[in-house]
């Protein structure tokens, strides 16, 4: 285990030979972040899990073959790989099966679930505690996925004002739920 080793150092160790522990540690760190990227862009958990596998395979392959010249740029490299892979997924690319056969499924276990869902009843009380405008902006933004411009038009305020209301409400909800840092 390399809990205190920088990401760049892990990349170097992977490139210096077959360091399976370094590879496992990199997977442990990067997989949740890649999954979030996938959920944000693909909006579906299974697709996000697939993205994790495809990206990690491509990244490990590159590191093993020392194709990343500057280890400090690992995060940028992973992000670039995420972007390319999402494009490929959208194009219906089926490279995954071939790569899974090459690397084996044991390392590429699905990432565990993200944070547990907040208590619905508690959250409902927190939503009730918001001002009317804040509650409406939160529901229009996060449930209906209406843009800031749309919500601004509905409320007769500026887009910047909607952003302020949304941010204030988000902080109040987090504080009410006891998760604000």
């Amino acid at each position, binding site marked *: 285990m390399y809990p205190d080793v920088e990401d760049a150092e892990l990349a170097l160790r992977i490139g210096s030979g077959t360091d399976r522990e370094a590879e496992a540690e990199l997977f442990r760190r990067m997989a949740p972040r890649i999954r979030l990227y996938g959920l944000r862009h693909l909006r579906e958990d299974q697709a996000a899990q697939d993205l994790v596998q495809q990206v990690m395979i491509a990244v490990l392959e590159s590191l093993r073959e020392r194709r990343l010249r500057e280890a400090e740029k690992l995060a940028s490299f992973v992000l670039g790989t995420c972007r390319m892979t999402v494009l490929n997924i959208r194009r219906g690319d089926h490279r995954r099966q071939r790569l899974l056969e090459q690397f084996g499924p044991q390392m590429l276990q699905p990432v565990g679930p993200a944070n547990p869902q907040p208590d619905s009843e508690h959250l409902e009380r927190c939503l009730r505690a918001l001002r009317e405008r804040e509650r409406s902006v939160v529901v229009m933004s996060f449930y209906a996925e209406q843009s800031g411009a749309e919500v601004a038009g*509905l409320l007769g305020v500026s887009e910047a004002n909607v952003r302020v209301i949304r*941010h204030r409400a988000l902080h109040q909800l*987090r504080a009410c739920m006891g998760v604000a840092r």
Partner: protein
Amino acid sequence: MSCTHPIDAAILADYWSSALAGQQEEAVEAHLLGCAACSTLLEQVAALIDGVRQVARSGSLRMVVSEGVLERARREGLTVREYAPPQGGSVQCTVTAADNLLIGRLAVEIHGGQRVDLVYCDPGGAEIGRLPDIPVAPGCGQVILQESITFAKAAPDNVLTARLMAQEDAGGERLIGEYTFNHTRSMPGKAAW
């Protein structure tokens, strides 16, 4: 696990709901891929947003909504029951077990910049609840009010009057719309009160 330049939770919420401009979104993503602390915070924010969606789907909040909210609910297969009482008039209404959202469309003309409160009154005209400073825009023509479906499903036969009250700069308030809902219980079982 710490971060020297943590991203604010509200910015992460904007990122999660696709509300950031292109360059800002790219900067956030570049940071997230290299930062465990901010990724963990994003997971919390994403879970909170998902929780908000679940509460919205439950129809349990009494609040002003938009056509966009109703469209989203219908796309998700939810059943939306709507009533549109005439201004100054009344409507017979109910709610069934199959309904997910209960909506009242209150026709009204709103003029520039005035604060509007929504006041609930009993059949005798006494105020029993108030939503202060509801979100309305001049010229919108209506207020789309979501009544709590949980409350409505538990309710006995009752009469509820909703009043839209413009708040005057000099103090006091002025009635700009009144709508009466004559609710008949059609849910099986006894009412909750």
